């Protein structure tokens, strides 16, 4: 009797505690998400909120024949497929470098983490200046020329623009993953390394058979969040290239912004957003399945 009363009041308390979170989620996530789906079936132009007409699946039909949409899908995948391994390996390498040091760990940790603390907009503007195609003003091109190499177009050449963004994004983002790896490295018992070295394992072998298996869960987590972050790429193309040149850096989220705000096709942008949502959800569910199967 006593226990069931307790349980009841506990339950009540639990609801009360949950309410603020539920309200916040409902107002800022669930409601807008549902609205997005609703607008995806309308011809909503942002300038005329009073003249919204239902248009069935028109937006989706248009979307599948839209060349720019498919380019955005391709660019988003290009970015994700390259940046995830690059950034993860870079972060792991930095973490290993730092953890193998005795002195100055906190200095290096802070140094590698500092790009992460800086706003992406600031970083993007700085890199735009460094990537300037003109050797007399672009730092990286000045470097290339002084080494006797040909200057590169970087952001103004459609062949190199996306890769330039990938490199800069990995540099900016690796610090965060490095911190997670560092924590993971500390969780690997010292005894395992000792045992390995007694068995005659060198540095490389103990990395391969002790460190990597010990970090398995951490790596899975890092890859997962990097993929989701990478899919949402927006700031860099917005600040650095405006999706150009020749569509080379137009990503899905940038396309949503461009259609919705610049061209004011809000209904169409919502349709793109809805498709984007489906892509991201299925991607992360797929990844979860693969991880579970292992």
């Amino acid at each position, binding site marked *: 009797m006593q226990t069931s009363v307790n349980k009841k009041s506990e339950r009540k308390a639990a609801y009360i505690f949950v309410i603020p979170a539920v309200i916040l989620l*409902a107002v800022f996530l669930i409601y807008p998400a549902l609205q997005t789906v609703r607008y995806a079936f309308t011809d909503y132009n942002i*300038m005329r*909120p009073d003249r919204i007409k239902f248009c069935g699946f028109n937006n989706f039909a248009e979307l599948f024949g839209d060349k720019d949409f498919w380019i955005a899908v391709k660019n988003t995948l290009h970015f994700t497929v390259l940046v995830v391994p690059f950034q993860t390996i870079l972060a792991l390498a930095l973490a290993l470098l730092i953890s193998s040091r005795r002195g100055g760990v906190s200095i290096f940790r802070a140094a590698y983490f500092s790009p992460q603390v800086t706003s992406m907009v600031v970083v993007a503007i700085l890199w735009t200046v460094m990537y300037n195609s003109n050797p*007399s003003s672009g730092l990286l091109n000045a470097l290339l020329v002084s080494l006797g190499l040909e200057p590169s177009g970087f952001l103004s050449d459609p062949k190199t623009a996306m890769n330039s963004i990938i490199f800069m994004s990995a540099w900016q983002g690796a610090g965060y993953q490095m911190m997670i790896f560092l924590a993971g490295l500390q969780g690997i018992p010292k005894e395992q390394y000792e045992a390995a070295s007694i068995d005659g394992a060198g540095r490389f072998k103990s990395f391969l058979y002790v460190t990597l298996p010990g970090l398995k869960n951490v790596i899975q987590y890092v890859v997962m969040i990097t993929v989701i972050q990478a899919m949402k790429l927006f700031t860099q193309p917005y600040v650095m290239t405006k999706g*150009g040149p020749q569509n080379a850096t137009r990503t899905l989220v940038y396309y949503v912004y461009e259609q919705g*705000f610049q*061209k004011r*096709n809000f209904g169409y942008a919502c349709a793109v957003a809805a498709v984007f949502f489906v892509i991201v959800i299925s991607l992360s569910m797929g990844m979860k399945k693969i991880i579970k199967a292992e």
Partner: protein
Amino acid sequence: MKKKAVAVLLAALMMSGVCTACGQSEERVNEKGESVITVWSPSDEPAIEQWWVDKIEEFNQSHEGEIHLQREAIVRADSYAYEDKINAAITSNDLPDILYVDGPNVSVYAANGITIPLDDFFPDEDWADFLASSKEQNTYDGKIYAVGATESSVALFYNRDMLEEADIRIPESKEDAWTWDEFYEAAKALTKGDVVGTNIIMDKGEGLPYVLEQFWISNGTDFVSEDGSQADGYLNSREGVEAAEFLNSLIQGGYANIDPIQKEFHNEKAATMLGGSWEVSTLEKDYPNLNWGVTYFPVANNGGIPSSPTGDWSASVTKNAQDLEAVREVMNFLFSEDNVTTYAKAISKPPTRVSSYDVLTEYNEYPRSIFREQLMETGHPRPRTPSYSVLSAEFSEAMLNIFTGVDAKQALDEAAAATDKDYNKYYAEE
């Protein structure tokens, strides 16, 4: 159990719906009972920010107890950031009373009922004092939807030392402005080492259509038809493609940079530039050692039409304004003869009121006289079409694509098609 959770969620959802709906009915009155009038305009140079501070104080002092004027300065960032902010305010029905918009956007907002006509905001004798070019840009469907204090123009700035060294002719009158061929040859001759011959990219947002449309007009076409309903056959006409190819030849030859550094001309890294009227005061103030001059906008070969850009930011009144009497009072204050003159002086742009030129006599003398002359005689406002936002973004993208190797005809075809698609989708039936 689950049912309860669903019920809570639904209740929260409905609440959130109510919350978004109640945001708009707020009355624009402060605790003193004064009608609060809000102005949005782009943040600007210190001199103009100070002008706002002074004028708002002056206005509020003389209207104490009745009207309280306030301004929000919004960063524009050489991009479409300001328009993004307006778009967000339109969706949330939370526009300010007075909204500054760039010239070509006046028709966009007017066509969509975002702003209201101002014809009866000023007496006729006041309207008569405003420049025709400014009124033309701000008119949509026969009504005036915005009023500006300043105009703008673009002309060709040159580094006098570099031109003299290369022995290049400097045009003395509008009639012998450089032709495209002369412009090209000059840019070619002036490109040496790390100095390029010219700078044609003001910024990669609105700067591109603002400056470069003149090449279309001068070659006998334009971006869109007279009534603003069609881009196909104009933007991508033979003359238009020629204009784009000419501009591209400057970039491909290496005579102009696609990524110019900030103040490239000012820092003697470009021998000439297509620069705005506002550069005159920057050059006078911050680059006293630069030996520069300014001449007329280049004209297409074989008797092209002399043309130069016009249009500037102007104030419109939004549909969300509540106390129209107070708004009228503010507008009459902001655009009085005196305030147009002081504003134009502070921002270093040509004023829109004819009478202001009696006070600002510097516009009678070189170099500012060039801009005044262009404004009165060769100025062409940007297209007045409700699809301007799409046109502007598409044109910028097309030009950058052409500069990086896409065929001019193909890029312009795509831009024209996208613009026409927007017009036909939203505005054609009206």
